[in-house]
């Protein structure tokens, strides 16, 4: 069973909102990915202070010198050095308000926090690169056949102990 939000939090139900919005616009209902059973909980093999952490972020972040994402089911990924200068980060996405992410990319790509956690010894290290993509991909088939295998291959090559997924 998936986890329901406690009533007192009064969270916005974006699935219900999208359904109502699409209905109003006359679109067919959007079919969200739905996994009835959660992915397995794999116990960590070492403490966080000795773990290598990989950052994967879907907010459309790229680095100056890289091609930007296009906005029609772009399943490509970017490898962004974890030594990147914040001033070299850019955002390309069609579906959220990028104002704050442009002023401080750490709101969707928390590289400074992760570097801080390494410097204070809370985590062991970061992989050489973070992986980014633009999450507004409406084809689950293309996600499974194109994006996920590439992400998986790139992650396997860097052999992190922990992967932090930051969606928008």
């Amino acid at each position, binding site marked *: *069973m*998936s*986890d329901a*939000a*406690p009533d007192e*939090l*009064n*969270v*916005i*139900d*974006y699935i219900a*909102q999208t359904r109502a*919005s699409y209905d109003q*616009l006359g679109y067919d209902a959007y079919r*969200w990915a*739905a*996994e009835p*059973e*959660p*992915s397995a*909980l794999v116990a*960590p093999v070492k403490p*966080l202070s000795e773990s290598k*952490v990989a950052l994967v972020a879907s*907010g459309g972040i*790229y680095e*100056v*010198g890289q*091609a*930007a994402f*296009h*906005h*029609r089911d772009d399943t490509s990924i970017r490898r962004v050095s974890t030594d990147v200068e914040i001033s070299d980060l*850019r*955002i390309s996405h*069609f*579906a*959220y*308000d*990028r*104002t*704050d*992410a*442009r002023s*401080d990319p*750490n*709101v*969707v*790509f*928390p590289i*400074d*926090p992760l570097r*801080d*956690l390494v410097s204070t010894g809370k*985590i062991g290290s970061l992989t050489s690169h973070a992986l980014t993509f633009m999450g507004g991909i409406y084809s689950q088939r293309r996600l499974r056949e194109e994006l996920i295998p590439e992400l998986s291959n790139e992650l396997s090559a860097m052999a992190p102990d922990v992967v*932090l*997924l*930051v*969606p*928008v």
Partner: protein
Amino acid sequence: MSSAWSITASANPPRSLFVDYPLGHTTGRPNHLVEQTGIVSSALALIASATEPGRIVPLPLAWPDEWKNQAAGLGDGRSERLDTPQYDRPEDEQAVRQSDR
């Protein structure tokens, strides 16, 4: 990480930390490094502390201003989905051409 409870619950990852902020701030407010680091640290702490797969753990943080009335409204705020690269800044395209050479 998550700022969209129902979407995360539907995808059902093994562990999630929920930050109830407007979309586009999954890891905190801009230029608040202490807050951002606290959020990331709380998310990573779930690696060891989670005991039940699929649980979403809310972080007791509230966005300083009222934002949910507007964010919960209907309407389509997305821009057109063009199939050419959409650069954040026009000069970024030039930087790609230069790095290709």
